[in-house]
C-alpha cells in the first residue's frame, strides 16, 4: 500500500458518494424505477398530476447504458487517434450520456402521458422543459463520477491496475449503482414522499394504491419538489451505500496486495460481511423497540 493508492481510493469513495446521490435524485425527479408504478396508477384512479413519469427501464440497465456510453465516448477520445486529455474526454462522454438520457426521458414522458389521455392526464410542456434539463444535469454528474471511478481503476499510469477495459468497468459500476439506487433511496420517495398525507410509520396500505400527493407546499406538486425532499435523506443514503461499496471493495485489495496477500483480502471481506450482518440485527432490534407493535394488530402471537 502506498499513499497514492490510498489517496486515489479515497477519491473513488468520494466520487461514488456523489454519483450515488445524483443517481437517486435523477430517478426521483423522473419517477423512474419502482415508485413509478404509483405515478402510473394515480391518473387511472382519478388523481391527475404534474409528476414527471419516465419509466425508461429498470434503473440498473438504464444506468449501465449511460455509464457505458460515457465510457466508450471517453475512451475513443482518449485513444491515440484523438489524444484528448482524460478529464475533458470524461466530461464529453458524460455529456453524450446526459443527452441520451434527455432523449429517452422526453419520449418516455410524452409516450406514457399520451397513453393516459383517456384518464384526463395531460402532457405539460413546462414540466417537460424544466424537468428534463434537471434530469439531464443529474445524469451528467452520475455518468461523470462513474466513468472517473472506472478511469482511476484502469488508467495505465495510475497504481491501481484493473484488467477490464474502461467501458466494461463503467458498465458494471453503472449497473451496480442503478441496483443500489433503486433498492435504497427510492424507498424514501416511493413509501414516504408520494404518500405524505398518510401517518408516518407505516408502509403503503394496498387499499390506498395510486393515491399519491398531487398538491405541493404552494400550488401543484412537481417532481422537482420531490427531489428537494429526497435530497434530505434518500439521495445521501444512496450515495453512502455506493461510496461504501466502492470503498470497501477496493480498500481490501489496496491494503493487502492481491498478488501476495490475496487470502487476507478475502478474510477481511468476510469480516466486513459479518459486521454488516451484526449491524443489521442491531438496527432491527432498535427499530422494533423504537416503534413497537402496531396497535391495530389483533392476532394471537405476542410481540
Amino acid at each position, binding site marked *: 500500500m502506498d499513499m497514492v493508492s490510498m489517496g486515489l481510493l479515497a477519491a473513488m469513495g468520494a466520487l461514488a458518494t456523489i454519483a450515488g446521490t445524483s443517481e437517486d435524485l435523477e430517478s426521483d425527479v423522473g419517477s423512474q424505477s419502482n415508485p413509478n408504478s404509483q405515478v402510473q396508477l394515480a391518473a387511472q384512479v382519478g388523481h391527475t398530476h404534474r409528476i414527471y413519469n419516465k419509466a425508461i427501464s429498470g434503473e440498473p440497465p438504464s444506468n449501465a447504458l449511460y455509464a457505458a456510453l460515457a465510457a466508450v465516448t471517453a475512451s475513443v477520445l482518449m485513444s491515440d487517434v484523438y489524444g484528448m486529455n482524460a478529464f475533458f474526454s470524461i466530461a464529453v462522454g458524460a455529456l453524450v450520456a446526459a443527452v441520451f438520457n434527455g432523449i429517452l426521458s422526453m419520449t418516455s414522458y410524452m409516450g406514457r402521458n399520451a397513453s393516459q389521455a383517456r384518464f384526463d392526464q395531460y402532457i405539460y410542456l413546462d414540466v417537460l422543459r424544466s424537468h428534463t434539463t434537471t434530469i439531464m444535469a443529474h445524469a451528467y454528474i452520475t455518468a461523470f463520477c462513474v466513468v472517473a471511478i472506472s478511469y482511476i481503476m484502469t488508467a495505465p499510469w495510475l497504481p491501481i491496475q484493473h484488467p477490464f477495459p474502461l467501458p466494461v468497468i463503467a458498465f458494471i459500476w453503472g449497473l451496480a449503482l442503478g441496483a443500489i439506487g*433503486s433498492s435504497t433511496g427510492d424507498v424514501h420517495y416511493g413509501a414516504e414522499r408520494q404518500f405524505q398525507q398518510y401517518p408516518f410509520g407505516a408502509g403503503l396500505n394496498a*387499499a390506498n394504491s395510486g393515491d399519491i400527493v398531487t398538491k405541493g407546499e404552494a400550488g401543484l406538486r412537481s417532481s422537482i419538489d420531490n427531489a428537494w425532499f429526497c435530497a434530505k435523506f434518500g439521495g445521501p443514503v444512496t450515495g453512502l451505500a455506493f461510496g461504501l461499496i466502492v470503498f470497501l471493495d477496493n480498500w481490501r485489495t489496496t491494503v493487502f496486495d492481491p498478488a501476495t496477500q490475496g487470502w487476507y483480502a478475502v478474510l477481511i471481506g468476510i469480516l466486513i460481511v459479518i459486521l454488516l450482518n451484526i449491524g443489521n440485527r442491531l438496527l432491527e432490534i432498535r427499530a422494533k423497540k423504537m416503534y413497537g407493535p402496531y396497535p391495530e394488530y389483533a392476532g394471537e402471537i405476542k410481540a
Partner: protein
Amino acid sequence: MSTFDATTLVYVFQIIIGGLLVGVGVHFVPVGGAPAAMAQATGVGTGTVQLATGSGLTGLISAGLMMSVAPDNMLLIVMSGAVGAMIMINVTMLVGNWSYVYAVGVPPVSGKVDYDPITKDPQPPYIAPGTVGHGVPTVSYVSGTIGGLMGGAGGSLIYYALMNINGISGLSAFFAIGIFVVNAVIASYNIQGTIEGFHDPKFKRLPKAIQSCFVATLIIGIFAVLIHGGV
C-alpha cells in the same frame, strides 16, 4: 483453432456449475419488487435480476482483479468474487433498512413466517396494516448474504473458465455477464419476481430452476467455449 478435448469439457463443466450457482443464488436474494419500494412487501425494493446482477457483477470486478495477479488460484478468484458480491448486497440491504426504519418508520419484518427462523422474533405484530411485511429482517438478510456468495462465486467461476480459454479479460467479462443474466432471469421467472429468502414457500420451487438453468447453461456453455476457443 482449438480442438474439442477433455479440457474443453472441464471448462463447459465449470461454466455450468457457475450458472447453477447463479440460478440457485438468486433464490436466496430477498426482493420484494415494486411493492417493497412502497414498504408494502418484505425484501429489497427492486427486481430480483437487478439486485442479483448488481451484486454478482461487483464480485466480478474483485474476481477480475484477483485473476490478473493470481491466474492459477481458482479458489482465491472465486472467493474474491463471492466476497465482493456479499459486500455489495450487504451494504445495499443495510442501507435499504435505514430507509425503511428512519425514512418510512417501519421495522424490518417478514410476512411469510410467524417467527423469524434465526432470531425467533415474533413477526405479525410488527406488520403495518394492509401490507405483507416490509424491510429486510434478519432471516432475509442472512439469506441475501448467502445469495450474494453464490451469485458472486458463480459469476467468477464462469469468468475464470472463459479467461482460461481466450485470455482476453474484456471479452470474458462480457460473456460472463451474459451467462449470469440468463440464469438470473430464469431463476427470477421461477420465483415470479419476488421472494423473501430461504424461508419463503416459493423457495421450494428451487429444483425446477436447477433443471432449467442446467439446460440453458449447458447450451450457452458449449457455444461460449466454442466461440472463445475460436472453432
